[in-house]
């Protein structure tokens, strides 16, 4: 009844793909054009919020270890918080630009939780490699919204954030249970 972990990863990869494409689209055409249709401004924060909401079932159904459960809970809350803060800003309920920091915080916390919950080494298996890679990508990527909180209009920072989301999406799509990475798979995982 519970889908394999890799299937869940692909579903969330699709969410990150949407997030990245929205950010990329806004970077390419500029915020003025992007927000000419009002709903577009809500697109990526609503997607992030929804992904956070859908992470809760992952938390309660994947309880193979306490560490996994807590990590999934951290992602659920981080994504909901980031999405909610951005929705509040778009709607005009939150005026302070420092609310942008919640996106940076969410990425940092998510990356940290990924690294802590993946107890295998980089080359243990493909899933382990991807967890490490996504964790560090998220931590590095958190710098883009962090700086953007102080330089709101910067297109390169938005592009960097979009690239982070797209990279996370690609990495998640690559996930397979117990697949080799660069031709290597630990004996323990065979």
């Amino acid at each position, binding site marked *: 009844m519970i889908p394999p972990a890799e299937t869940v990863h692909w579903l969330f990869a699709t969410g990150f793909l949407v997030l990245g494409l929205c950010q990329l689209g806004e970077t390419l055409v500029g915020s003025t054009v992007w927000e000419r249709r009002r709903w577009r401004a809500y697109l990526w924060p609503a997607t992030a*919020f929804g992904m956070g*909401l859908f992470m*809760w*079932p992952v*938390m*309660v*159904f994947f*309880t*193979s*270890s*306490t*560490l996994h*459960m*807590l990590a999934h*809970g951290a992602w*659920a*809350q981080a994504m*909901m918080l980031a999405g*909610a803060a951005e*929705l*509040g800003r778009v*709607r005009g*309920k939150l005026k302070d630009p420092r609310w942008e920091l919640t996106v940076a915080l969410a990425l940092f916390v998510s*990356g*940290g939780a990924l*690294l*802590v919950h*993946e*107890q*295998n*080494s980089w080359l*243990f298996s493909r899933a382990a490699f991807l967890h490490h890679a996504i*964790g560090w990508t998220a*931590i590095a990527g958190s710098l883009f919204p962090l700086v953007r909180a102080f330089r709101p209009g910067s297109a390169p920072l938005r592009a960097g954030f979009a690239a982070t989301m797209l990279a996370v999406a690609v990495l998640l799509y690559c996930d397979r249970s*117990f697949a080799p990475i660069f031709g290597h798979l*630990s*004996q*323990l*995982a*065979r």
Partner: protein
Amino acid sequence: MRRLLGIGLVALTCLALPGSAWAHATLKRTSPDYRQQLERTPARVTLEFDQQVMVMPKSIQVFSATGRLLSLQPRLGKDPRVLEAPVRRLPRGAYTVRWQALSADGHVVSGVFTFGVRAPAPPPSEAYGAKGPTLRDHLVRWAYFVSLALLLGGLAFRLLVVRGNVSPAYERRFYRMAGIGVVATLEVGIVAFLLRAEDALQLPFERLLYGNLAAIANGTRFGLAFIAMTLGFAVVAALLFLGWLTDRRELLWAALLVGIGFASGLSLSGHSAVDAGSSWASELADWIHLTAGTIWLGSVVSLAVCVWPVAPELRREAFLRFSRLAIVLIALIVGAGIYLSVLRLPAVSDLWTAGYGRVLLVKLALVCLALAWGAIHHFVVRPLLERGPAPAGLVRSLAGEGAVGIAILLAAAILVDSQPPPAAPRSPAQAAQTP
């Protein structure tokens, strides 16, 4: 700033370290299965992991209900991912399997599950070795009740008492209170589940991190309630947020109804669902008792925290409307409470002879105090308010009533974690009359 940078660097270094050979195994399946009822003694107990593990002296231990060890030396199976231990002949009864395996990284992964031989298996929370609730469990459950009160009471007060448009200051306070309530409900729920898992697994914290929780999450009423309530209150959090974002009151109604609905998880997994004499009526009574109690307390807190300090224009109307609502809530609390007390205490003397009864006595004393306080508000303050301005010190009086309500929730938390006295055995004559 330097200090912050230093902390950041240390944190990054720690994250980089999860090391060159850290690898911990996950249990894929067991034989017998979780809580499986077998018709005959199994030849062995086997555990299958997702990767190779190393055997330890206590990798698989099978205990009887009295704690007798019935398993022999564990060993690796033909497949190095499988651990197995032969077992002696098992008589009819319930059995606990405590397992642990050494992963390649040196971390020990652990877990517990139960099975029965020609008898039903108990939930893992009642496995041999589990000690039952402690002070920490009482405090966590208390925090859960208070969180529910802030959430459900705040919402109900906003929708049933302060119905129309309100000042932005009140609205901000209301959303803060309900927001704290829903976040705390989720967080405290996770802590409560982990405490229960820790008790069942009997592991120190560092090993609990690698403990397998699946048997507790999927094999106990408490675990199923945790799953349902976590999902339900995540939806409530989303509805509450969307209500704030869009200023749509219908979403708050949806949040309140979903919240009340999922609060039933406590009633469906507690005494009212599993003890002798429990039925759908006891579950319903427990749910009504809990819901009415949390709404009453949350409403008192709303009056003291949201209305009085920042919305003087609402004070009179809110107090008078809440007085009417409180009568209904108190009737529900008292009616359901009396029914449940009669059900759980077979004899009146249990009130002072049994531990459960003594805690109930303390709770009843606190309820009487709260009722008296409420009566003063209803019969003395209310007529004064109808005639003129609010009497001085009313907000302190409301805060006092709220504090008593919070103390009642502590007594309720201890009651929920306590075992009611067993029903007295029937006399032979009574037994003979019953088919």
